[in-house]
């Protein structure tokens, strides 16, 4: 995990801050950090792809169109494979500077500063065509003549003083050529601007038409979807009503069944009660008869006992009378 926590060319803390907050302050901090990172990268010879482009985007977002254009041009020159992407970025962010490949440079840096900066970049990166094309990219013929291999070899052969002199000469030559061509470039730019405006208008008209068509399509689609939704809703409501009716019917049927069951059970209960009452009556009558019989039996027994006792008494009386009569005779 060699580079964990170190990101080449990306001030990650400021970037995360900007991504989370999207404020002007965070953007400003990000731009400052990018500037420092680029300076450090140039010094350490570790310029990574995308650094200039990101810095350019931050500057453009802050409203500094000149420096932004300069940085985007620098990216294109340092990494030629980025040209289509950066051109698209320029078109998005600074469309008014599309044809300008040197914007803002002369306003911000004087020639001596430019030469010294270019020299430092040159000695660290050994990309002479890139730097010189930043100085004057309108001189494309010169740029195409110089291939990176040629320039690198030439630089390796020259001493530092010779390199500086060579660069100053080239800068002066470029400046002279630029002054001489300024009128023709201005005219060309004007023509470009007019053509661009025309193209923009055409594009805008086409866009408007496309938008209108898309809007109409969207409306149609929306209406169709709404109708489908309504239809689906009606269908659902119908389904729901049908189900509710079925439920009601089932409920009524169940209630009737329950009533019938209840009546049947009540009748059974009544019948059982009547049967029980009759049984109880029979039992009661039977018991009464038994009681009467027992009473009669007891009365008969008592009568018998009474008769027996009376007979015994009579017998005893007669025996006594007999004894008395015997005594008298004696």
């Amino acid at each position, binding site marked *: *995990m060699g580079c964990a926590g170190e990101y080449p060319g990306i001030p990650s803390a400021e970037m995360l801050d900007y991504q989370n907050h999207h404020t002007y302050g965070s953007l400003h901090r990000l731009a400052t950090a990018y500037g420092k990172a680029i300076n450090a990268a140039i010094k350490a010879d570790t310029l990574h792809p995308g650094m200039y482009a*990101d810095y350019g985007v931050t500057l453009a977002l802050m409203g500094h169109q000149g420096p932004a254009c300069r940085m985007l041009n620098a990216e294109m020159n340092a990494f030629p494979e980025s040209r289509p992407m950066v051109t698209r*970025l320029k078109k998005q962010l600074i469309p008014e500077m599309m044809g300008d490949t040197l914007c803002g440079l002369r306003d911000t840096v004087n020639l001596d500063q430019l030469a010294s900066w270019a020299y430092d970049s040159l000695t660290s990166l050994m990309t002479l065509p890139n730097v010189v094309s930043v100085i004057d990219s309108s001189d494309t013929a010169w740029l195409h003549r110089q291939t990176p291999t040629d320039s690198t070899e030439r630089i390796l052969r020259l001493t530092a003083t010779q390199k500086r002199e060579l660069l100053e000469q080239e800068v002066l030559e470029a400046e002279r050529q630029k002054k001489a061509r300024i009128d023709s470039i201005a005219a060309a730019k004007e023509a470009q601007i007019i053509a661009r405006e025309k193209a923009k208008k055409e594009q805008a008209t086409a866009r408007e038409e496309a938008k209108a068509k898309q809007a109409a399509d969207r409306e149609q689609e929306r209406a169709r979807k709404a109708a489908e939704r309504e239809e689906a809703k009606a269908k659902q409501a119908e389904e729901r009503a049908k189900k509710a009716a079925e439920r009601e019917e089932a409920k009524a049927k169940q209630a009737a069944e329950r009533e019938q069951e209840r009546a049947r059970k009540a009748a059974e209960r009544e019948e059982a009660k009547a049967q029980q009452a009759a049984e109880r009556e029979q039992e009661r009558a039977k018991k009464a008869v038994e009681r009467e019989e027992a009473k009669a039996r007891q009365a008969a027994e008592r009568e018998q006992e009474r008769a027996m006792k009376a007979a015994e008494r009579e017998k005893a009386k007669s025996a006594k009378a007999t004894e008395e009569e015997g005594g008298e005779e004696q």
Partner: protein
Amino acid sequence: MKKRLHLLVILATIALAWGCKGEKKLVQYNDLYRERPAVIYIVPIEDKAEHRAQREVDDSLYNLSLNAATQHLYMTASAPLVYKGYYVLGPLATAQLAATETRTLKQLRNESINDYYSDLGIDAVLFIKVTKWENTFNSWSVDIDYTLRAAEHGTEIMHTFVHATKSVRTDFRGNPLPLKEDLAFAEKYGCDIETAQRCRLVEIVNEYILSDLPSGKRSRGTVIEPHAKTHPEYFSLCINPDGSIMLIDPPTEL
């Protein structure tokens, strides 16, 4: 003597490369070697773990932490590719380009992206999709899906799905105990420890996956690189508290 030492080092490197577990890079990245892209464009992260917003809707800190980690994942994706010698535009410029894209990420993933090649000179487009975030008692987990598509033909030239887990030491209350690196990260980025740990997790995963790609045109690359072993297409990795990485193959949770 020096020559012998050089020879020994080369032999040891070759032996290590052959001895490691996994498939050869030449086989795993066959399409990538054939296409040889120079410019890679990273589309904004597709965060499919959005359901957390509904589940943890009140836990704004948790959601912020995950969002920050996703942003960090996006930012740190370009660094390993740059080191491998590819041209990658910075995150801000990429986001600016992506702002004008009318197609959805799903459409970009499935439909033709030839316009990226013809209009912007991009050779390959990298799609990164976060599928799931998970936190258990003492670990943070994330599922990330990396897909690289050739812009010219629309073919998929690299696809890796990783289930990464970072083990975290916790105190007796269950709060995560930060490492020194986590503390340094949190201090530098001005975030809390949990966010720092999640950010470091995605950063390490990015580094591990993207550093493994074959070298780009800007890098010189070694002769033995295509024969070096690499990780499988679907795998799990675990980052231990001491920072070491343990590859779990085959993945248990996929």
